[in-house]
């Protein structure tokens, strides 16, 4: 019975939002705005709460078991301290929250991001080999792209950057288009299957 109600609610809201997207009627637009501005935001807030509670529960469990205890404690302190700082001193200007954001979070994230360059350099030496014809083509395309995204115009012949532009504008674009069309059709089909009740795995498995 519960599954049937969930399916009916899913169909009703799926069909309604689908219709609202295309309608220009003032009533439809008003309803659309209400759903978008109010209800969607409330749902988002609740999902955020669920996520935070799940994270705390999981991390606390790991701390009790002793798995990566120092890191888990730092995670919990980070999660707890940011909202506390924001609630007490606000999030604007030179508040402690912003200090933590700019001088702790941003450098940490930038460091992790920058580490990628070191791994790319290492992987390019050890793994990027012309073992077969397709691998050789990929390798050539990679070198052309690296050249085109550098400021070596005076040193490298113009042909290389033009070739890189051609690769980006033709084979790469064709592949990207095919992927995007595939994703679009897949999303459409799955959405229709969910709305029409053909796809029921989201209800928690078949019995």
């Amino acid at each position: 019975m519960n599954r049937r109600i969930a399916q009916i609610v899913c169909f009703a809201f799926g069909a309604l939002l689908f219709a609202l997207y295309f309608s220009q009627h003032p009533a439809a637009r008003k309803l659309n705005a209400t759903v978008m501005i109010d209800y969607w935001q409330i749902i988002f807030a609740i999902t955020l709460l669920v996520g935070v509670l799940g994270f705390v529960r999981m991390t606390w469990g790991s701390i009790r078991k002793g798995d990566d205890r120092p890191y888990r404690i730092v995670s919990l302190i980070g999660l707890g301290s940011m909202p506390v700082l924001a609630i007490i001193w606000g999030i604007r200007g030179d508040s402690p929250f912003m200090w933590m954001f700019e001088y702790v979070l941003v450098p940490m994230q930038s460091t992790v991001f920058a580490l990628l360059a070191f791994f790319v350099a290492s992987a390019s030496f050890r793994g990027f080999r012309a073992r077969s014809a397709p691998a050789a083509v990929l390798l050539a395309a990679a070198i052309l792209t690296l050249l085109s995204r550098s400021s070596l115009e005076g040193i490298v012949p113009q042909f290389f950057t033009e070739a890189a532009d051609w690769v980006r504008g033709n084979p790469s674009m064709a592949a990207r288009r095919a992927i995007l069309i595939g994703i679009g059709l897949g999303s459409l089909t799955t959405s229709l299957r969910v709305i029409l009740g053909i796809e029921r795995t989201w209800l928690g498995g078949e019995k």
Partner: protein
Amino acid sequence: MKQIESRHWIFGGLFVIVIITMVLNINLEVRVTPETDRFYACLDSLPAGATVIVSFDHEASSLPEIRPLALAVLRHAFSRDLKLVGTALLAEGTAVGYRLMTQTADEYGKTYGEDYVYLGFKPQYIAAILSMGESIPDTYPEDYLGQPYRDYEMLVDVENYDDIAAVISIADGSLTTHWIEYGASRYNIRIVAAVTAAMMTTYDPYLASGQLYAMFGGLRGATEYEQLIGIGGSGKRGMLAQSAAHVYVMVLIIAGNIIYFRTRRRKGSAS
């Protein structure tokens, strides 16, 4: 043990090369690509006083690439006397966007509330984009500083996308796609994007089809834009380090392949 050592040498080499190029002040010329030129022309063609949304759709991790892009675009927009409305579709971009806007506004003597307003972050990006199409003041009843939307004179006539000349999405991920799919296709707003280099190919099909009006990106794009507006920034400096790192990676790829083929030939002749 040998493999670990070679990896460490590679890491060390990259570190040294980047440090040296950051210290040296070499002036490398960059050709302005047509796509950057199109973005520039798009902003340049807007009449003074036109209202433009600048959406900071990125996270803090990509700041080294995003900051030069954003600064170049904001400098151009402020120099053209465009009215800027700042938003962020990702929480992390909110503070970054506010800082960049106020910093650039100060450079050009622009006043908050008269020349630019920062609306801040709204969770659920699809909902935010769609609801702004219906009503921006209902979506953002207050700005980032907590002042009512209606208090700002520059926003009095700005009700929805009909009153916006363009949306500039400064992104490090796929959020520009949502601006295209929900903002452009549903409300016919003109979308232009400044994105990280890794994301550029993602948007190529949208750019080719015209759904995305203009796009430029990466440190190279930032350098090109700095050249177009005639103001040097961190793009050029970063581009130098990036170019050196690219050359280093290319050398590593070639060296790796030479070693691979020599080893294979040796093994073949031995058997």
